[in-house]
């Protein structure tokens, strides 16, 4: 098992290198001249040249990339053009907020979607099934930010129950998490439903019923546990999505997360920040994926056996 984990971690390296390569070149070769962007509006040619020199923009790009990768080994992702702050530090400051939002959102999505998926699977091809799926699909059919705005209108503006933005305790977490979570709920419901449908007609379900187990036990103990792998996969996918992809909700609710950091930095042409933050997100996703794979082993002895063998 431990050998498996180590192997996986080693396998992450090429993925991260590939990502950094693509992002670095995309950002640095097409983004226009950062010196022009950074210089104050009334800067002279000479000042712009100085900025260029200071940022090391006069080296050829492969040299810059090489330097960048060397820095990365030391945990140095460069300094933001805009804030002049350390990219890694800035990212790590934002990360807890993102994690908080992502986990809560996925938790909400799971609490809605898994029961709904089970319910629709049990009542397959009835109006309950259709109704449940339509409800779940609502979440994914709405633009995320629009749902956020609607929630603000309802809960913040009219009912005055919850704050409309910012980050202050658990109350300000509810609306953004709901916004992000509803988008995820559909996919989780869909996956749960089809995984349960696969499982529900399995012989061991009948075995369990024949033992005299109640329907609840059969569905949850025997059914859900077997359907968990695809469900965990999709929850894991959503979690890694949420870790960088909640930019819209973060903008609507002024939530200081990583997604907003990246998008803001893109619009400010803050190349080191964008590059660093995307690479970090990629690392994060790899870690989440690894954790998910390890969770599989926890739920499915067959996979555990596989890992040990491969390990």
């Amino acid at each position, binding site marked *: 098992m431990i050998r498996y984990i180590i192997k996986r971690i080693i396998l992450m390296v090429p993925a991260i290198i*590939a990502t950094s390569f693509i992002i670095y070149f*995309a950002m640095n070769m097409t983004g226009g001249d950062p010196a022009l962007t950074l210089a104050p509006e009334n800067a002279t040619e000479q000042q712009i040249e100085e900025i260029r020199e200071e940022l090391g923009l006069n080296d050829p790009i492969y040299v810059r990339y090489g330097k960048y990768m060397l820095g990365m080994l030391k945990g140095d992702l460069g300094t933001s053009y805009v804030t002049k702050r350390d990219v890694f530090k800035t990212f790590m400051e934002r990360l807890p907020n993102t994690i908080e939002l992502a986990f809560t959102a996925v938790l909400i999505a799971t609490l809605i979607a898994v029961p709904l998926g089970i319910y629709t699977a049990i009542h397959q091809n009835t109006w309950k099934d*259709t109704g449940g799926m339509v409800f779940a699909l609502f979440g994914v*059919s709405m633009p995320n*930010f*629009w749902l956020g705005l*609607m929630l603000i209108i309802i809960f913040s503006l009219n009912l005055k129950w919850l704050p409309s933005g910012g980050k202050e305790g658990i109350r300000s977490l509810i609306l953004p998490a709901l916004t992000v979570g509803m988008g995820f709920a559909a996919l989780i419901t869909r996956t749960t439903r089809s995984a349960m449908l696969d499982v529900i007609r399995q012989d061991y379900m009948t075995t369990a019923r024949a033992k005299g187990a109640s329907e609840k036990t059969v569905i949850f103990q025997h059914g859900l546990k077997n359907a968990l792998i695809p469900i965990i996969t999709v929850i894991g996918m959503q979690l890694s999505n949420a870790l960088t*992809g909640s930019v819209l909700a973060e903008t609507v609710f002024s939530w200081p997360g990583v*997604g907003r950091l990246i998008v803001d930095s893109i619009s400010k042409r803050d190349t080191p920040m964008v590059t660093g933050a995307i690479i970090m997100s990629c690392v994060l996703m790899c870690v989440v994926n690894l954790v998910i794979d390890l969770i599989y082993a926890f739920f499915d002895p067959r996979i555990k056996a596989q890992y040990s063998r491969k390990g």
Partner: protein
Amino acid sequence: MAKLNDNNEVKSRSMAQETWRRLIKNKGAVIGLIFLLTLVVVSILSGFIYDYDTDIIALNMGEALQAPSAAHWFGTDSLGRDIFARILYGARYSLMIGVGAVAIGLVIGVTLGAIAGFYGGAVDQIIMRVVDVFYSIPNIMIAVVIVSLLGTSTVNLLIALCFTCATSFTRIARASVMTIRDQEYVEAAYELGLPTWKIILKHIIPNCLSPIIVQVTLLIGTTIIAASSLSFLGIGVPSPAPEWGAMLSEGRQHIRDASYMCVIPGIAIMLTVLALNLLGDGLRDALDPKMKK
């Protein structure tokens, strides 16, 4: 050989019929299909009913921000334009962006996927690792990067959005091709001396159609939403085009004083994407051999 082909055709036609039969039994899918067909008809008709210059983009400051009424069913926006007309007319933009990006992504993705799956080895490795990288970055991020780098225009928007579609089609196509590649009839075709591209086109692609059809439907919806999200971030379809996302994004400034400006385009997007999702799910069920009884 000819005989065999005939048989195949008969079989595939009845497959399609069978799928169709199962599809129309799914209430959700039927509702979705009807809605989408209506939408397409409406968006075509709206071109005859409204004149773009005078009805869709012409300003009428005197009638700005009027709430929905008999004269303006959906009200007017901050420049006095009739929202009902813009919504109807705008359907084509949202649909075209969705369909366009998915179509481009489909061509690129299936080609890459087929190549990767068919040749395997280093080609496969390179293609798939690049796809993995793009897959691991959230769609919206990719789109934002591309649009900000290339500048805002409808063409660049399509490029940005087709990326995401391409990666997922590449994966599907590759997986299907790999399972089919080694089957006997493909080997037979090889031995008959058919060129590779013909084999891919004639034998392999038709066989991965069902997951692709489902994915196309679902991705059109995702793309429409992504396009509106880019509008929200200020890098979508440039004004004054009545694209729903752009209207919605404009409407959010009036979330309090004229919330209909924000609500109505949102509902339009939601219903369209919901219809696509219902249809997609229906197709998935109808095409899924597991669901056969």
